[in-house]
């Protein structure tokens, strides 16, 4: 069959199926293939809350979206070009987000009476014309798979299980992705099970063959490699990058890494990732709850290790009393909050940025704490190192904020050369002569870190207010006032280390957009969209890694704009900090849809604000 190849700049594909359909696996293999194909990319898995919801239900649909491009790719995109729908529920829940005129590749075998009625389709949408606005390709994937894998000996349910690889093969072929990595993956994963190994490979190739031989798929696509800087790349999710960052920070500071945590979605995989690194000297403690997690991490810090605890919102609540203790005993500690939808148990598998105010203020007493936030999966690597640097240099617990999107989302990562990563100089105090538990470094205001086991530096720590310099328990009013100030000033002083803030977009604009955390991608792209459209409207953009203390130069920047907008995936939080600090009428653009902000919505908002701003002042 003759095949046409069309070149595209950027494509968004969404895989959707039952929880048991293996969509996450397909998605991540497709990501790897796209990465290897040299595209820039960004992914967003979208799990149901249930482990395995009953087959065919709407709430059991598991999705995986990827955008891969020739150009810079900062988000998984708003509207898929292509939807792979493995069953009616997947179609039903996802079709509305599809781009107008987009492609639907559906597994026709799954459109049984039962499956359709379960989700309320009275007639078969693959046949009743209801999808005529889309380009619909119905493929009997299951039967084709079962047929293809026969030669492996696999039958029935086991044979049907290979359908996801058929879909993967089909879509790889459609977008010209290489298969090698997937084949290697199959070989490694099913190493001990030759039948399954063979069957999955057969299914994969059957999918490719189908795509190459079917009329409806006669147009294939090509997406040229992105112009990434030279180097070795891999695709990486945020939790993995964060784990690698912690290991790197430990090595660069010469400290043993001790992670003490309690599993919680979407933070768990950091613990899992690090648990597999005993051979790199990492100790992970799975504790009985989040309180115990931070307690053990603090104990490890006291022992002279790099103590880290990872969790999500509900877990941070539980850690708050201990964070206060860490602040008053002034030990280094990294607290990672992988945010999810709240309040309460909320939407555990959806992303949100709604823990910021808690990080900032969620403890009793005056208890300021440094907060930094990662902007993308790979940035979590750098932020883990930076958090460690702050924690050890200033002897303080540090909050590192990410979220469900960063945690599970993936993007290409230019693998750094470890030698290029600066050391994190850490000195533990060993000289009894000069030791005073609360004698501070005059510049950083950090107190010395003398760890148990050091002869002659025996001392007592605790949660009661301490006397300046000696660290003895002290209830004197003036001392408490002094210590309150010193603790506060120490944190404020961290801003000295910051680089100058970068203004992206068009600096000379009326509108400044200030963002933090995982909204970076959407906001950047929306800003670019406005700046590159054919109107003369322009937008400036500052994205913050450092939330507390705020950068010293931010005030100057912010005050230079007529309008300031703060987009967040929460009900408006960071905007309060900015308004309080700079007395600027910053406006909140707040959306809590459990997913990254939509670029087009942001762009529209910027344009509409600019329309009302012109001429004002």
């Amino acid at each position, binding site marked *: 069959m003759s095949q046409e190849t069309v070149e595209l700049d950027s494509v968004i594909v969404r895989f959707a199926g039952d929880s048991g359909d293996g969509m996450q696996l397909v998605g991540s293999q497709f990501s790897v293939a796209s*990465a290897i194909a*040299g595209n820039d990319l960004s992914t967003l898995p979208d799990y149901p809350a249930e482990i395995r919801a009953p087959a065919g239900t709407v709430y059991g649909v598991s999705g995986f979206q990827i955008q891969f491009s020739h150009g810079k790719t900062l988000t998984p995109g708003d509207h898929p070009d292509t939807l792979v729908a493995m069953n009616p529920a997947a179609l039903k829940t996802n079709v509305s987000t599809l781009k107008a005129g987009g492609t639907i590749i559906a597994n026709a075998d799954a459109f049984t009476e039962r499956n359709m009625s379960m989700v309320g389709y009275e007639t078969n949408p693959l046949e009743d014309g209801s999808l005529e606005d889309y380009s619909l390709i119905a493929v009997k994937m299951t039967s084709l798979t079962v047929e293809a894998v026969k030669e492996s000996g696999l039958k029935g349910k086991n044979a049907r299980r290979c359908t996801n690889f058929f879909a993967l093969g089909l879509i790889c072929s459609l977008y010209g992705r290489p298969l090698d*990595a997937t084949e*290697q993956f199959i070989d*490694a994963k099913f190493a001990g099970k030759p039948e399954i190994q063979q069957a999955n490979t057969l299914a994969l190739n059957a999918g490719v063959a189908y795509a190459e031989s079917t009329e409806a798929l006669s147009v294939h696509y090509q997406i040229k490699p992105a112009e*990434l*800087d030279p*180097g*070795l*790349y*891999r*695709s990486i999710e945020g939790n993995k990058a964060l784990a*690698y960052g912690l290991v790197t920070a430990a*090595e660069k500071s010469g400290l*043993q890494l*001790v992670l003490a945590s309690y599993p919680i979605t979407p933070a768990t995989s950091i613990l899992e990732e690090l648990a597999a*690194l*005993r*051979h*790199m*000297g990492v*100790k992970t*403690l799975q*504790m*009985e*709850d989040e*309180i*115990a*997690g*931070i*307690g*053990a991490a*603090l*104990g*490890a810090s*006291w*022992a*002279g*290790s790099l*103590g880290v605890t990872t969790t999500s919102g509900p877990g941070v609540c539980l850690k708050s*009393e*201990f964070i*206060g*203790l860490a602040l008053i*005993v002034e030990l280094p500690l990294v607290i990672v909050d992988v945010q999810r939808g709240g309040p309460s148990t909320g939407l555990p598998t959806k992303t949100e940025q709604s823990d910021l105010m808690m990080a900032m203020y969620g403890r009793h007493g005056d208890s300021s704490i440094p907060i930094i936030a990662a902007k993308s999966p790979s940035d979590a690597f750098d932020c883990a190192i930076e958090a460690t640097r702050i924690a050890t240099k200033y002897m303080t617990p540090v909050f590192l904020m990410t979220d469900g999107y960063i945690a599970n989302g993936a993007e290409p990562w230019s*693998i*750094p*050369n*470890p030698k290029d990563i600066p050391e994190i100089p850490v000195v533990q105090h060993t000289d009894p002569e000069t030791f005073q538990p609360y004698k501070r470094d005059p510049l950083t205001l950090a107190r010395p870190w003398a760890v*148990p*086991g050091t*002869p*002659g*530096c*025996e*001392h007592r720590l*605790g*949660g*009661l207010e301490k006397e300046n310099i000696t660290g*003895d328990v002290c209830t004197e009013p003036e001392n408490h006032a002094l210590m309150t100030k010193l603790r506060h000033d120490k944190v404020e002083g961290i801003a000295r280390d910051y680089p100058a803030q970068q203004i992206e977009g068009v600096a000379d604009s009326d509108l400044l957009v200030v963002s933090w955390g995982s909204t970076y991608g959407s906001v950047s792209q929306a800003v670019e969209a406005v700046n590159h459209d054919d109107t003369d409207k322009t937008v400036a953009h500052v994205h913050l890694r450092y939330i507390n203390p705020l950068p010293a130069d931010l005030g100057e920047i912010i005050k230079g704009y007529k309008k300031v907008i703060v987009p967040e995936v929460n009900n408006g939080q960071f905007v309060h900090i900015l308004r309080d600090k700079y007395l600027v009428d910053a406006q909140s653009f707040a959306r809590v849809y459990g997913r990254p902000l939509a670029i087009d919505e942001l762009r529209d908002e910027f344009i509409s604000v600019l329309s009302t701003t012109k001429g004002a002042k």
Partner: protein
Amino acid sequence: MSTDPSALTRKDFTPNQDLRWCPGCGDYSIHSMLLSVLPTMGVPKEKIVIVSGIGCSSRFPYYVDTYGFHTIHGRAATVATGLKAANPDLNVWLITGDGDGLSIGGNHTLHLLRRNLDINVILFNNEIYGLTKGQYSPTSTKGLKTKTSPMGSIEQPMRPCAYAIGAGANFVARTTDKNPKHLKATLERAAGHSGACFIEVLQNCVIFNDGVHSEVTDKDKAANNQLVLKAGEPLCFGENNEKGIMLDGFDPKVVDVSQAGEDNLLRHDPTIEDIGYASMLSHFSLPDFPVPMGVFRQTDTVTYDSMIQQQVEVAKANRSDNSLEELYTGFSKASTWEVE
């Protein structure tokens, strides 16, 4: 440079600040005995660490001149766990109270014992919240009238040793502030045991629960009301060891030794693997039974801290792909690509 442990004396641990417990508080006796045990362990001073929660008892670290951490209420076990797991070389003592360790901290104490960290937990049981000025605690007897139970507490009290055994503790003992010799000997036994030790100390709070243990600990009552546990010896008590404990089916009962015959008495064996025996002891209470004193149970299992250390060492020995470079690629180049 590490200090010489053989040169240590009590003085080395004596703090340069005043002890701030109420005059007459039982905590003084426990403090004094621990101070006499610490220098004898053969451990350099700087490796001895005391961790506590919050409560009168938990002020302990301030009163020992070594590394100390007065953490937050109920959570000392977590800090101690992280400390010991990070550095198994430290010698860790955890001081807690019936409120700190069994009420708010009940779960952490339990998991520390279960995991078998090599940590000695000393629980000061005065059956009251001392520091907050006298509310009933989880160990207070039913009916106790306190500020928060003016009509009498309606709660079934916890038995700390039963709890510890149920949690899986391998070393469980009871002693009292009123018998310094026994107290010291018990601390020494714990110091010598590798693994988590749980020691309940019956402690008198002169201010808010004075005499709570006097039926057990008063000099003139001890013989009849205490069952002093000695490995290998029959369970006897009384002025002249004239009373003993026997089993009737599985129901323990107090018998007259001369009638029952010493050979028919239960013999104390703290090393029984099954917890039935130690649990039985932990349930003994006045007036039906004498209160057991000593080591209920002492069995050996490898410690959590040594195992985590060992996993690290084994993993290091078995795998050479431990550079950051290798880490970054996920220990395989399969999923990487080069941009030129």
